[in-house]
């Protein structure tokens, strides 16, 4: 363990350009995936919270179950779709960062949708009569509720980011762990483990943890400040 911390420290101090590239790509892929997934999943989660429709229970159950979708399975689905022999093969997206973003979007989407559904549903319980009294349609209520639940939803989005940045199964399959092109923190860790270079693997792990902690920390500080101001 000592060795791993020393390695992590050395890597950070050296600012190795290859490591920097890997870190940048990790952040770029996971943050893009989180933004795309949230733009889709937040309104969808809110809509499920607001509308009663036949089969709603089934949809909610499926969403909750999909939160546990194994990354490898998500990766395989994307692989089969983007493969030259697959339906979207012509796009030539396999083994690119875009493919990794797509796989991570699939992983994050159910988390953000399911959790935002729950949060918005609770808020809707509180706001419903007032909004209906003001003549707010359900469609119009979606952005209002999402905006008013923003502090809780930040946590949801961060959970999505955590899952995206921590998973290795999906990005390994669809990205291919190509050096300098699709290698991210987690696949680099897997590779170093494969080489038996455990201190380096763990050192990279510590850096990944620091990155995720930094993103979370910034979100927390900003969120807390706003929350205290707005009640």
């Amino acid at each position, binding site marked *: 363990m000592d060795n791993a911390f020393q390695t992590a420290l050395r890597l950070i101090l050296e600012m190795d350009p290859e490591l920097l590239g890997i870190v940048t790509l990790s952040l770029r892929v996971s943050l893009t995936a989180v933004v795309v997934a949230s733009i889709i999943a937040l309104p969808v989660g809110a809509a499920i919270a607001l509308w009663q429709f036949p089969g709603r229970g089934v949809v909610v159950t499926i969403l909750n179950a999909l939160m546990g979708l194994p990354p490898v399975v998500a990766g395989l689905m994307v692989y089969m779709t983007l493969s030259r022999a697959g339906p979207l093969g012509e796009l*030539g997206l396999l*083994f690119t*960062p875009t493919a990794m973003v797509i796989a991570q979007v699939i992983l994050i989407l159910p988390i953000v949708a399911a959790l935002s559904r729950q949060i918005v549903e609770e808020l809707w319980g509180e706001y419903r009569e007032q909004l209906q009294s003001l003549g707010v349609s359900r469609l119009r209520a979606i952005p209002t509720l999402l905006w008013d639940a923003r502090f809780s939803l930040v946590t949801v989005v961060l959970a999505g980011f955590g899952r995206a940045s921590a998973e290795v199964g999906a990005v390994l399959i669809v990205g291919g762990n190509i*050096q300098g092109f699709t290698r991210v923190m987690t696949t680099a860790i897997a590779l170093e483990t*494969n080489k038996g270079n455990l201190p380096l693997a763990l050192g990279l792990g510590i850096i990944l943890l620091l990155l995720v902690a930094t993103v979370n920390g910034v979100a927390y500080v900003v969120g807390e400040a706003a929350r205290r101001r707005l009640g």
Partner: protein
Amino acid sequence: MKHLFRNLVAVVAVLGAVTAAQADDRYITLASTTSTEASGLFEHIIPEFREETGIDVRVVAVGTGQAFEIGRRGDADIVLVHDTTGEKEFVDNGYATERADVMYNDFVIIGPEDDPANISEADSAADAFARIAEAEAPFTSRGDDSGTHRAELRMWESAGVEDPSGRWYRELGSGMGETLNTAAGMNAYVMADRATWVAFDNRQDLTILYEGDEALFNQYGSLLLNPERHPDLKHDLAEQWHEWLLSEDGQEAIASYRLRGQQLFFPNAE
């Protein structure tokens, strides 16, 4: 609504930035094995190739079985693996138009220093395998349909051990490095390619106990994919790589790679 629109613009911009890196298409995707990647060979030879041709090579390192599958589906432009029998089948089935020997190294049999099955005194590789089975000493197998796994299964066959099984035989379904990590943890025997072993750091009590038999010879071959099956692939660039590997420059690049003072791959193109 304005927020939503602004967010959308931001997303498109970010997506654009992510994809922009792909605009340059002077590159090929090579499906190859973990042993070549993990040993650092590609990091040594690809820059030389790039220097000469301006073509970049993106390596997707997987097990040989998966590399074949990637080739069959047309997800890579070219394939470099180590399973001569499988490679010839691949050509016969029309997935590749050409196969060429590129280089070789060898497999070594690794185990705990105290060598409970006493394989260091074996007469042949087959004898070493027979001794492990006889002693029912723990053995970790890749179990992932890789080139190494296929070679290992052939060794059991020649040792007269049909379908090795039992508590001592652990089929992991993992890459070479993970299998070595497990073997180190369990003090088990394991067969590995020499390149991965030399590059491997987490050895603990493991050491090479048997090596040198011709049966442990590990041949790598380059496969040119069939343009009729996958007309969209970059066959001309792939062919340049294929030719370069077999050329004097390529062969020298392979021969000059040293890790920890050892030569890991021996060029043998005809």
